[in-house]
């Protein structure tokens, strides 16, 4: 029989014909017609008009036909909810069928029909099926609970399905257990706080038993679930590890990787002195190597994961360098990943082999691969000091090949080598200069210019070389222009006599004829420096540069730890936390490695030591990086793909595949160190220079720019706050080092009923920032920006701008922990950055928060006593009246004042923006600086934060 004919009908009146055929009396004809309908559906034709006719075919004994009708139903029920209800009876009936295959089919399909009315009817059959005598039905019903939960979570909870599902974990059939675990894990993920997957040693034991018996897929579900468990001590961790290790020999790579995940995670808890720890380390290497003989796609997943594992525990694979050597027929994505891992494993012991390989790769055919190989040689030089000389000579050999892109890539990495080992290899400069003419890529040109500028005093014709670049100054890319400017200034400072003309030329090109504010500003800085204080200029421009570090592309340790918890999953492939690419609440839950028990970890793995600690004045909330990425990605991407949105792009990786592009920059050898080649680091780092805002355009060129500029800065200084509730001083929320040079500090204020977020954005990078946008994550009180973030002009390097962002409280609400945590994402032309901050609750106290006295009394009595919380406010020397008026300024209203036994009792009320009333009793003893504060509220969880607000207001 050939079904392909169903794909070929394209006649116009086909819907009518199909309708007739569907209503035919002949069974065969009916079936043929349904097949045609499904085929049309597959190729994307809209056949929803046939809904009633197809549903009529549902009542049949022919299972094949029934399945086809079900398939149709799943696709179109949502668009025809009223008609879909016609199908309910058949489903309910099928759930009672004596044949377990049909019962399961009915319950499976019903769960896929996302129509509320149908869902209601599903509950009873599902309940029965969950307790069905046949395991096939039970395992299907288990998954159905997850489906139902996806449609209507409340219903599932109300109907008690979750408990039934939990019971299935103890089912006698391993496949039922596995599906129940999968369903529970999925439901738990969307309710991070719920204690749904209440794993304890007993249930873990059940899972481990089922692990030995269920299908390969079931093993994956169970292992992934186990990885979320936190053993109570190292002994338990070890015993789980022991039972998981046999899985490392499974033929299914996913089982192996999930087992590796469990082991990597629980290993954290084992003491390194333990014999078992060493054994485990040894056991991990062979299966990881074996993954490399799997199919290429799996190899790719494995290699991305090995990349993480090698960063976390380099000792596991340190002797396995050879297996990462590239094979002739590896697909390019495997080759590139292998190369990356080779560099991570490179050490003094194996560097000779690695270099020999890399040299071989540099003569391959694929351009990307060759480039990466050349870059890798540079990274080896930086990583393994002893090999630097060999690397340099290898690079020189490669330059001799005169293959254009090889030469350019080599020059870029040689520049990095100079930055690691200054004044050591300048003998090669002559060779580099020979290739000057063949450089046509901005990055290579910039690198070459940097080298010439840096070593200007030793290159006899440095001025000629730079002058030759200057001729086409305006055609160069910004990167090259900036570099050229800096290089010529360096040259001038080193050889002032002959090069005065040149430097004047470049300064005027940069300041007068350029539209690029970045370039102009740098030009002005140099100009001013040179004209006012050449000695200072020398100190700044020719300052000793910090050496670049060996590993610029290591994943940040906390992210690495998180990714280790996601081994095998997409997150580990993208090297991004799930929140970066998963929508909604799923995956918001952060995972982390368990703390090590037993011996304290010494500084054993210097390779992974954090390179820089965040500044200390951060808010204490851990910034949950990436929570918002979800929402913010939309800023960049617009609505999810419809049609060919970005197909015209010429850089497919970057534009179409946003994440892919991001990955590239992650794995790119030394992106960081190249990005700041743009200017001498001394300038980037010194805060004393503030560039002129770009609006002070070239009118006063040539004149010393001193006076005019100063005034402009004042604009940004103190825009005083009007009277209103207490405003805390600004604190740094986002340090520049975490946000590619963007520093954000700010505070919150409330004035006459409107809340605002007062921000200072400072550009501490060397590049102009523009296209700012801000977004908040959902938060406890629905705070949201009431207007877009308005930054009128692009923010030039070292410029600051002060912005007052009006807020409202109509955003979407999600309870945060702590309650007043606000996660913010700021986007600019460079990237998206995240931070979180705590806002003081008193910005939410509304102006009409004064309660009637009678009302107050009644409410006070009405709120149960267990909702009352008491706090002590220490060291406050104000008297009752002062307190009262101070609080009133922040919308805490005193309703009554009594004097009881020498103590002043203040009764106060306040109302939050979301309508929650808080009643307070403040007891003040004249001689005692400690006040007693009792708070009563129907939502007692806010009390803690109200108390903090009191403290803040009273003490400032």
């Amino acid at each position, binding site marked *: 029989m050939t*079904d392909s004919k169903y794909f070929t009908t394209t006649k116009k009146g086909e819907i009518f014909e199909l309708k007739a055929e569907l209503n035919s009396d002949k069974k065969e004809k009916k079936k043929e017609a349904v097949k045609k309908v499904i085929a049309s559906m597959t190729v994307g034709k809209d056949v929803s008009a046939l809904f009633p006719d197809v549903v009529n075919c549902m009542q049949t004994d022919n299972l094949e036909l029934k399945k086809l009708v079900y398939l149709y139903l799943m696709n179109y029920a949502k668009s025809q909810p009223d008609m879909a209800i016609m199908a309910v009876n058949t489903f309910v009936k099928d759930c009672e069928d004596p044949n377990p295959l049909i019962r399961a089919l009915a319950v499976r399909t019903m769960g896929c029909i996302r129509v509320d009315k149908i869902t209601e009817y599903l509950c009873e059959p599902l309940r029965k099926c969950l307790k069905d005598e046949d395991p096939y039905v039970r395992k299907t019903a288990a998954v159905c609970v997850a489906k139902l939960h996806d449609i209507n979570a409340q219903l599932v909870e109300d109907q008690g399905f979750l408990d039934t599902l939990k019971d299935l974990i103890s089912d006698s059939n391993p496949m039922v257990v596995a599906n129940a675990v999968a369903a529970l894990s999925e439901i738990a993920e969307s309710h991070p706080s719920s204690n749904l997957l209440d794993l304890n040693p007993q249930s873990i034991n059940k899972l481990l038993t089922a692990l030995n018996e269920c299908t390969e897929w079931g093993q994956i579900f169970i292992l992934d679930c186990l990885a979320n468990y936190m053993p109570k001590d190292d002994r338990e961790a070890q015993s789980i590890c022991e039972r998981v290790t046999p899985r490392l*020999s499974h033929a299914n790579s996913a089982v192996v990787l999930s087992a590796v995940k469990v082991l990597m995670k629980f290993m954290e808890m084992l003491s390194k002195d333990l014999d078992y720890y060493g054994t485990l380390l040894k056991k991990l290497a062979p299966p990881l*190597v*074996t993954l490399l003989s799997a199919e290429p796609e799996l190899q790719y*997943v494995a290699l991305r994961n090995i990349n993480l594992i090698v960063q976390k525990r380099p000792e596991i694979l340190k002797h396995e360098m050879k297996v990462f050597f590239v094979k002739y*027929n590896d697909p390019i994505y495997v080759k590139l990943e292998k190369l990356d891992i080779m560099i991570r494993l490179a050490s003094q012991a194996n560097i000779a082999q690695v270099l020999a390989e890399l040299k071989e790769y540099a003569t391959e055919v694929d351009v990307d691969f060759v480039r990466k190989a050349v870059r890798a040689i540079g990274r080896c030089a930086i990583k393994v000091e002893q090999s630097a000389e060999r690397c340099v000579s290898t690079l020189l050999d490669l330059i001799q090949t005169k293959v254009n892109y090889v030469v350019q890539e080599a020059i870029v990495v040689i520049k990095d080598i100079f930055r690691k080992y200054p004044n050591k290899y300048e003998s090669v400069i002559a060779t580099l200069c020979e290739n000057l003419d063949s450089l046509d890529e901005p990055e290579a040109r910039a690198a070459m210019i940097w080298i010439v500028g840096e070593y200007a005093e030793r290159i006899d014709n440095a001025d000629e070389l730079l002058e030759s670049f200057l001729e086409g100054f305006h055609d160069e890319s910004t990167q090259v222009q900036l570099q050229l400017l800096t290089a010529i200034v360096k040259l001038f400072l080193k050889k002032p006599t002959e090069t005065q003309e040149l430097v004047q030329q470049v300064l005027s090109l940069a300041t007068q004829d350029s539209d690029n504010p970045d370039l102009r500003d740098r030009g002005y800085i140099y100009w001013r420096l040179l004209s006012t204080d050449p000695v200072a200029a020398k100190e700044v421009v020719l300052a000793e540069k910090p050496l670049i570090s060996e590993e610029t592309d290591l994943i940040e340790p906390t992210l690495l730890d998180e990714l280790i918890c996601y081994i095998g999953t997409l997150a580990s492939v993208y090297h991004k936390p799930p929140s970066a690419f*998963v929508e909604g609440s*799923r995956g918001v839950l952060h995972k982390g490695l368990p703390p090590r028990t037993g011996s304290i970890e010494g500084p054993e793995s210097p390779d992974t030591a954090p390179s820089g600690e965040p500044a200390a004045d951060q808010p204490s909330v851990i910034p949950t990086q990436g929570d918002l990425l979800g929402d913010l990605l939309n800023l960049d991407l617009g609505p*999810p793909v419809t049609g060919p949105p970005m197909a015209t792009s010429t850089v497919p990786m970057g534009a179409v595949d946003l994440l892919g592009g991001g990955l590239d920059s992650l794995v790119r050898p030394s992106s960081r160190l190249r990005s700041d080649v743009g200017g001498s680091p001394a300038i980037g780092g010194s805060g004393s220079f503030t560039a002129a805002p770009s609006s002070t355009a070239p009118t006063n060129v040539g004149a010393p720019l001193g006076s005019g500029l100063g005034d402009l800065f004042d604009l940004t200084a103190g825009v005083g706050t009007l009277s209103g509730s207490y405003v805390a001083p600004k604190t740094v929320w986002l340090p520049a080092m975490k946000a590619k040079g963007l520093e954000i500090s700010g505070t919150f204020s409330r004035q006459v009923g409107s809340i605002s977020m007062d921000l200072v954005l400072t550009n501490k990078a060397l590049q102009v920032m523009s296209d700012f946008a801000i977004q908040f994550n959902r938060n406890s009180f629905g705070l949201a920006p009431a207007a877009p973030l308005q930054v009128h002009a692009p923010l030039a390097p070292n410029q600051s701008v002060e912005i007052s962002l009006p807020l409202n409280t109509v955003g979407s609400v999600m309870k945060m922990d702590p309650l007043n945590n606000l996660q913010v994402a700021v986007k600019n032309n460079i990237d998206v950055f995240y931070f979180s901050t705590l806002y003081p609750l008193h910005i939410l106290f509304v102006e009409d928060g004064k309660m009637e006295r009678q009302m107050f009394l009644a409410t006070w009595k009405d709120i149960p006593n267990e909702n009352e919380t008491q706090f002590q406010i220490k060291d406050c020397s104000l008297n009752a009246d002062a307190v009262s008026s101070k609080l009133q300024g922040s919308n805490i209203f005193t309703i009554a004042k009594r004097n009881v036994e020498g103590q002043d009792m203040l009764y106060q009320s306040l109302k939050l923006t979301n309508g929650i009333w808080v009643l307070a009793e403040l007891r003040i003893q004249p001689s005692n600086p400690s006040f007693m504060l009792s708070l009563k509220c129907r939502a007692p969880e806010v009390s803690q934060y109200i108390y903090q607000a009191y403290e803040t207001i009273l003490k400032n």
Partner: protein
Amino acid sequence: MIGGLFIYNHKGEVLISRVYRDDIGRNAVDAFRVNVIHARQQVRSPVTNIARTSFFHVKRSNIWLAAVTKQNVNAAMVFEFLYKMCDVMTAYFGKISEENIKNNFVLIYELLDEILDFGYPQNSETGALKTFITQQGIKSQTKEEQSQITSQVTGQIGWRREGIKYRRNELFLDVLESVNLLMSPQGQVLSAHVSGRVVMKSYLSGMPECKFGMNDKIVIEKQGKGTADETGKSGKQSIAIDDCTFHQCVRLSKFDSERSISFIPPDGEFELMRYRTTKDIILPFRVIPLVREVGRTKLEVKVVIKSNFKPSLLAQKIEVRIPTPLNTSGVQVICMKGKAKYKASENAIVWKIKRMAGMKESQISAEIELLPTNDKKKWARPPISMNFEVPFAPSGLKVQSRVDVRGTHPMPWREEDEKGTGAADTVSSPSGWSESCTEKPGGDIGRCHLGRQDDRRGWPGGHEHT
């Protein structure tokens, strides 16, 4: 979990589209076509993220299979599932081609409904599936049959159905080894490893309990010192296996604790295990290539192969594949033994020798005429590869199996002993080349063969053409 599964033909037309999750819309189908299938560039990654939707794809001949998700799924599992999906389809209707998929689309939908529920892979063993997903519509099963099906699908031995009967119980074992060798242009072995597969064809009745043994060093050492002495005497009595993985029928916890391989096999052919060894690899052949460039339009190639095993043994079905440049216009070949032919469609000279004894040598020489081209793109110089069958395994692996059939036909502990053999190849001298071999010793019960391929370096360096 997997949100949807699409199958496309080479033009990007959808052949199968099955959506499991509400978050995957119809536009996902187009997104993949536009951004991956129709992308101008070569595919750079098997995982693509387009507008926050992730696509996993594999390609089988002209057919694209793509799994789609918006969640943080287990990526390894998705690929394993796609491979499995291919296996299942192949088992049902043969080669995966547009024609076959269109002809069987109803069946494929039925399979997809069964093996993937809400994006979670379910039992996908063809043995079990074939009991209740047939192309003939539903058979009216009896109640017993039905419950047998369900208990098998969900059971501990999901890969085998009950009640299989054969008049003759047979078991075949093939050992396929692939020797991977990497040599420096100076002829020094940089790395060599054997990756082997044990493929079993079982035609056994009932629920046979099988045990599989090999001359694994760890096991032999465990069994006592006596054997260890022998090892010293007769060379490679035992081999050190670096790592092995097993089909899901093998009881892994038992292997972990006792290092014994016991299982109830699926019916028919399956891959029982894979292993990898790196120590003491015997290379059955050496290949010595010589290439001379005569002007810009001519190449002279000479390849010598030397067999490197006992003269009493015989290698069979030797096939050497020598890649030629893409701009080859004509080839003249002279060989002392066997037959050689230039195959323009494959860009290679294929040299076949029926059999060759150990410690012998044979050679081929060829003159390759080249068309002058301006193509700047370099020729990738693929490696020479070689296939052959030899009556021993390069890794030294030897296998043994034991079957205990429970059920109707008791034939307890019948022992089948078989010698595994395999062959490998070597590469030597000025540049690295590669070859691969398959070996098959005769005998109907035990068969072994070895395949080998690869070593990536092809033509000697400095051979440039424009």
